[in-house]
């Protein structure tokens, strides 16, 4: 049984002091239900998660207590992707016909601070100042630039494009374009990455209604089909965040593994994808993830990005809603935001940030600590 997305809802990303994270999730859920033309009582199951804003199951207090199985998902940055994969399997298996996936969050200002014990690490690792996701991404792109000839100008171009797209997206947080030169010259955070090259923890909520593909048209004139939803964790030898040591011999990371599996499951290849949302917690991540997801060879990003290929009108539009850089990262909601954006794109409803040419296939990818990746492929 194939699976379709028939309803989508979003609470704008950024900072909303008047609403809790849970309330932002409830706003998104109500919008998704309305979009699908169904009531909460029609929903047979739900998966949801947040990292800092409480149990997603508490959405029942907002939406109504209907007795359905509601499973809380906690999987770091891949929380949304994990919820979606779980819902996909619940429908694909035939266990349920229609369900809801929700993700929301509300984080404090400033960089994330992780507890070493929660990741199986000694307290010393945090005490010495090594347990910073920002450091990992900086060190990964530093090595990547050395190995594949990516320039600092290209790092700035990625962020510049994100803010251009964010300005076109009414639900984005950062809605002012920032010139590449200003990005490159902004405060250095973790060399070679400056302040504007990093996303910030933020707030927001996203919900999706999924159902059996054969019933989708009954609810929705423009259903979008979930051709694959894959989650992978790291194998020994991949270079990952929160790692006091790493292997001398490197192997492909979870993004490469998840991407290959997702393409195989969907029966399509990278060249078939019309629009992609790739994890861009900082601008180096987007560059590396282009190759890790199979969209180019290592090093080709330099020319692709400098020539504008990843802009909305380019040959491979990436992060058309502004990505994490312009939306910030509410951990529980971030991966589902990518799916929301692709559904808009495939429906042709993305407005000012619509990719031209009637896109047919959309791709999403998230990466998270301590080395997990979730990928989806959507088709209209």
């Amino acid at each position, binding site marked *: 049984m194939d699976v379709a997305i028939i309803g989508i809802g979003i609470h704008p990303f950024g900072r909303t002091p008047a609403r809790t994270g849970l309330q932002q999730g409830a706003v998104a859920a109500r919008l998704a239900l309305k979009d699908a033309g169904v009531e909460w009582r029609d929903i047979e199951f739900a998966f949801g998660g947040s990292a800092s804003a409480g149990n997603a199951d508490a959405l029942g207090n907002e939406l109504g207590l209907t007795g359905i199985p509601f499973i809380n998902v906690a999987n770091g940055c891949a929380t949304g992707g994990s919820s979606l994969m779980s819902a996909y399997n619940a429908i694909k298996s035939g266990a349920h016909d229609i369900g809801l996936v929700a993700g929301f969050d509300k984080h404090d200002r400033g960089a994330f601070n992780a507890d070493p014990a929660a990741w199986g690490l000694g307290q010393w690792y945090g005490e010495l100042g090594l347990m910073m996701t920002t450091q990992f991404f900086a060190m990964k792109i530093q*090595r990547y630039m050395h190995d594949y000839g990516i320039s600092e100008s290209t790092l700035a171009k990625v962020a510049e494009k994100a803010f251009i797209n964010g300005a076109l997206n009414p639900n984005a947080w950062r809605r002012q374009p920032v010139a590449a030169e200003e990005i490159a010259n902004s405060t250095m955070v973790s060399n070679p990455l400056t302040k504007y090259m990093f996303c910030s923890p933020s707030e927001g909520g996203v919900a999706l209604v999924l159902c059996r593909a054969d019933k989708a048209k009954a609810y929705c004139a423009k259903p979008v089909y979930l051709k694959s939803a894959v989650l992978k964790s790291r194998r020994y030898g991949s270079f990952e965040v929160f790692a006091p040591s790493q292997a001398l011999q490197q192997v492909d990371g979870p993004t490469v593994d998840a991407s290959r599996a997702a393409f195989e499951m969907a029966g399509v290849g990278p060249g078939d994808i019309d629009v992609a949302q790739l994890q861009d917690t900082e601008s180096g991540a987007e560059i590396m993830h282009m190759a890790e997801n199979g969209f180019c060879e290592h090093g080709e990003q330099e020319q692709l990005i400098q020539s504008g290929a990843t802009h909305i009108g380019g040959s491979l539009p990436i992060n058309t809603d502004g990505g994490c850089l312009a939306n910030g990262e509410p951990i529980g909601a971030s991966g589902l935001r990518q799916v929301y954006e692709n559904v808009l794109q495939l429906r042709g409803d993305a407005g000012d940030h619509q990719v031209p040419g009637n896109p047919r296939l959309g791709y999403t990818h998230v990466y998270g600590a301590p080395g997990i990746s979730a990928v989806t492929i959507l088709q209209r």
Partner: protein
Amino acid sequence: MSQQLPIAEGLFTWPAKQPALLASRCNSCGIASFPVAESCMACSGQDVSVEALPTRGILWTWTVQQFMPKAPYHSGETAETFRPYGVGYLELPGGVRVEGRLTESDPQKLRIGMEMEVVFDTWRTEPNGDEIIGFFFKPVA
């Protein structure tokens, strides 16, 4: 009387004339891991030995942490006294690539491939005068 204490037991030999970081090495597949683990994350083997890692290696990648991390960062610094610090992975031949703080924080003086040595020094001083010893990577002059 104040003492010199390692930041964590079993992380490196201490006290020792020539201290070294400690790794576990899998007796089945030969893979080394830092810090010491009771099993091998490469092959799941549980037969591991503890060994001292080489004290010199090559800088594999690096960055400079420009802002002061939140807790659990525990250096004794305040927002006013915080100084940016280098972080990198040092490739120790025959062992692993170990992540650590660098004694150098000037980006102009750091480059991938440079030789560094592992040094052990006071990380912070506790209110009772005890010195907490950490490990650092220092460019070889």
